[in-house]
């Protein structure tokens, strides 16, 4: 089988594209004016339910060691932050960030009536819904809707993946999933698609109607021109730094190159997993944390060297934490509240910013949350992205002071 991989995304195709794009998309073709110091968010999703208690370790808590005779990480092995708090041994770069004032840790983040299904709980986090409410749009998608009324800029929110997460789908606008800017969609049929689009533009002009076919053509036009735009931007100032040759390393390298460009992107979304450690947790978490640690180390070093660390806020989340007690298979089962890391050169409140979980006050073996994740979202939307958090989150959630 011969794959005709044409370099469809190339300098010049942007101009060609403009000829047949409906007018409403032309505005989008204009160079995006991004002010220097564009504040961006990088979301790092730890899929599968990361075990928070072995991430931020209560090294002086007897209950922790009693409930986890095999899995508990000894104080001497943990990376020490304070007398009370240690990090997983693989997270050495996070210790450096902590010492540097570039790390905040929020403990006990969750939501009322927690759901223990991966899919459902992840939906709750991604849509910012209540646990008995079903939304078909994500919080970052609704951020796009709110920020971008009357314009079409799917590149404002980019996910480093082949498939777009619900978090990035709005009511009217969607973010865009790009695994590799060189290949937004690697297909042998690219030129056909471009001609189809061109033909539609010539025959019908501006997509005026609200018909589904207009929506499909609009999405197609956006996809093609975004592909051009993202690819060009990614080559403007590609980072020269070394990154680990892992999936997360590659993804953060792409993100860094885009941050250094003039792209209008405000949100980057990337996932790592699976943290679903029912069995043999130690090896699995160690492997994933090593990948995370090394990639974050390269990323933050790169941002600092390019004087952009102040403009970037990276945070981690997982759909739930895990149970306090270990199970019989050297692992842990699905739990509830969890901790979040926030990394930036521009943090306000730094370090471990609230109390560790109270292991003597559990709900049937699970942690009780003390911070709603929507407070974290509201803070980021309002203080960092300067967006209307109440509209996006359908309610008022008080702000935290990490930024």
């Amino acid at each position: 089988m011969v794959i005709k991989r044409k370099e469809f995304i190339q300098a010049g195709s942007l101009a060609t594209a403009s000829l047949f794009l409906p007018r409403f998309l032309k505005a989008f073709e204009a160079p995006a004016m991004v002010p220097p110091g564009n504040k961006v968010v990088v979301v790092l999703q730890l899929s599968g339910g990361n075990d928070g208690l072995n991430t931020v370790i209560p090294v002086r808590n007897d209950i922790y060691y009693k409930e986890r005779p095999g899995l508990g990480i000894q104080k001497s092995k943990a990376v020490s932050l304070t007398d009370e708090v240690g990090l997983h041994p693989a997270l050495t770069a996070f210790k450096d960030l902590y010492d540097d004032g570039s790390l905040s840790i929020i403990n006990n983040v969750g939501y009322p009536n927690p759901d223990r299904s991966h899919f459902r709980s992840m939906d709750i986090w991604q849509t910012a819904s209540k646990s008995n409410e079903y939304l078909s749009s994500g919080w970052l998608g609704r951020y796009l809707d709110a920020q971008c009324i009357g314009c079409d800029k799917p590149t404002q929110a980019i996910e480093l993946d082949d498939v777009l997460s619900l978090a990035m789908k709005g009511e009217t606008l969607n973010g865009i999933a790009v695994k590799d800017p060189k290949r937004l969609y690697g297909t042998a049929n690219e030129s056909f698609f471009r001609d189809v689009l061109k033909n539609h533009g010539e025959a019908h002009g501006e997509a005026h109607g609200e018909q589904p076919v207009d929506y499909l053509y609009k999405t197609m036009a956006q996809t093609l021109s975004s592909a051009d735009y993202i690819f060009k931007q990614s080559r403007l100032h590609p980072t020269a730094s070394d990154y680990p040759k892992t999936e997360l390393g590659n993804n953060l390298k792409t993100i860094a190159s885009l941050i250094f460009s003039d792209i209008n992107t405000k949100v980057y979304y990337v996932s790592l997993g699976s943290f679903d450690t029912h069995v043999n947790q130690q090896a699995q978490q160690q492997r994933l944390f090593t990948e995370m640690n090394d990639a974050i180390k390269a990323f933050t070093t790169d941002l600092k060297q390019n004087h952009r660390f102040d403009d970037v806020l990276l945070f981690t989340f997982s759909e739930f934490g895990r149970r306090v007690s270990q199970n019989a298979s050297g692992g842990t089962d699905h739990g509830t509240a969890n901790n979040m890391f926030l990394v930036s050169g521009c943090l306000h409140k730094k370090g471990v910013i609230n109390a560790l979980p109270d292991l003597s006050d559990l709900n049937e073996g699970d942690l009780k949350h003390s911070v709603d994740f929507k407070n974290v979202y509201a803070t980021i939307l309002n203080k960092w992205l300067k967006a209307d958090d109440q509209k996006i989150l359908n309610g008022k959630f008080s702000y935290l002071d990490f930024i």
Partner: protein
Amino acid sequence: MAVPNQLKNQHLLWRAGFGPAVEQLPDLSVFSPQQVYKAMVKAAAKKPSYINVVSNQLEGLMAGIQEAGRQQKKELTQEQRKDLQKQNREGIKSLNMYWLKEMVNSPAQLREKISFFWHGHFACRNLNVYYQQGLLNAIRQNALGNFGTLLKEVSKSAAMLNFLNNQQNRKDHPNENFAREVMELFTLGRGNYTEQDIKEAARAFTGWGANAQGEFVFRKAVHDDGSKTVLGQTGNWQGDDVLDILLQQKQTARFITEKIYRFFVNDTIDTQKVQSLAERFYKNKYDISSLLEDIFTSEWFYDEKNIGAKIKSPVELLAGIQRMLPMTISNEESILVLQRILGQVLFYPPNVAGWPGGKNWIDSSTLMMRMRIPQLINDEDVLNVKPKDDDDQMMGRGDDQKPVANLKKNMKNVGAKTIDADVDWNKYIQAFTKTDRNKLINTLSGILLQTKTGVSEGVIKSYSDETSRENFIRTATIQIMSTPEYQLS
């Protein structure tokens, strides 16, 4: 402008089924939609056969577990549990593939299509293949019957009772999940009941559960037999009574009719039509077949504004292609991968609210993938896209069967896969033996597309292989199917 008969029939076949099949092509201009619908009803009248995909091995394992459970409350060994999960996972895949084949090949198109609607309406995630199989069969048996019976069968299925936590719903420790969803999503819709109604209804459902074989059991000992007031009616209600109260509400008929209208007719509601359909549905005591007949034999169903107005769901798209192009697919898992990438995996709805549908199917990634499928089938493209992991399915073990390579460098050399499809092109091409060569593209577009306009002849022609008539039909068909218009029905 009058809509031609052929287009009307195609419209009917796409909505009341999974699209026209190649062998139906000669009939499309001959018969009236009324005649075609009558034939569809007849073909769907037969009781559906029970789909059973569970292997003997799994049955043995399940029996062994029950035996062990009876003897002593012994936990499964890690190996046993792992094995059981794997077999359940495989079983649900088989169920998915089996049912998809029914959608493609069954003459009972109407039954499979309305079952597919109920599969989304009574959305249920459950990792036990026995239970999923039981629920699917309950749905297929009652899909064209009485909605009340269907509602009760589904409510008593092990899959739903487990999924909505009714096993944990006990006297003095009510779990309201089932009571809430049955009102919000299965009957009345949001805003038509109070929180107090949910609390009271939950008490009526206490004691409803299922045993390990998936049979419904009523556990009298944990049932709250006190008095409850649900939607203004007071009594010592049990679960069935509450379902009856819900069915007494005209709102239930309205809610279901509106959803059916959206699914089968148009995402944009015609309030008056829905209202009168709902009145009749209620008067006909929730007879589903009558409601469908009201819709598919009406004149307005064939109005221009309803034709080509819906975005096909991924399953409709995948089934529709296979009906028009008869094919044998030797690597079935590639179809599962496509379902995952496109966002609709049978038996894995996103949540109890089902697939939202409409524009929600479409984003940059899914649209481009949809338009690549025909080329993938024709071996001119490779599947180089990786779906997201589903931890509920994989239980932390990672994808044990990765049909798609995660391409980092170049799509040429890494083990990316095609869809191993063997298309019976002869059968398809024969349908056009009488078509004039210079009318071919027009004829093909007319059969494949439901939209008023399509991609111009010139574009299709310039991407088609003109070396022979056969090659021309084949490549033009592939290209017409690779357009935004083909996503609509």
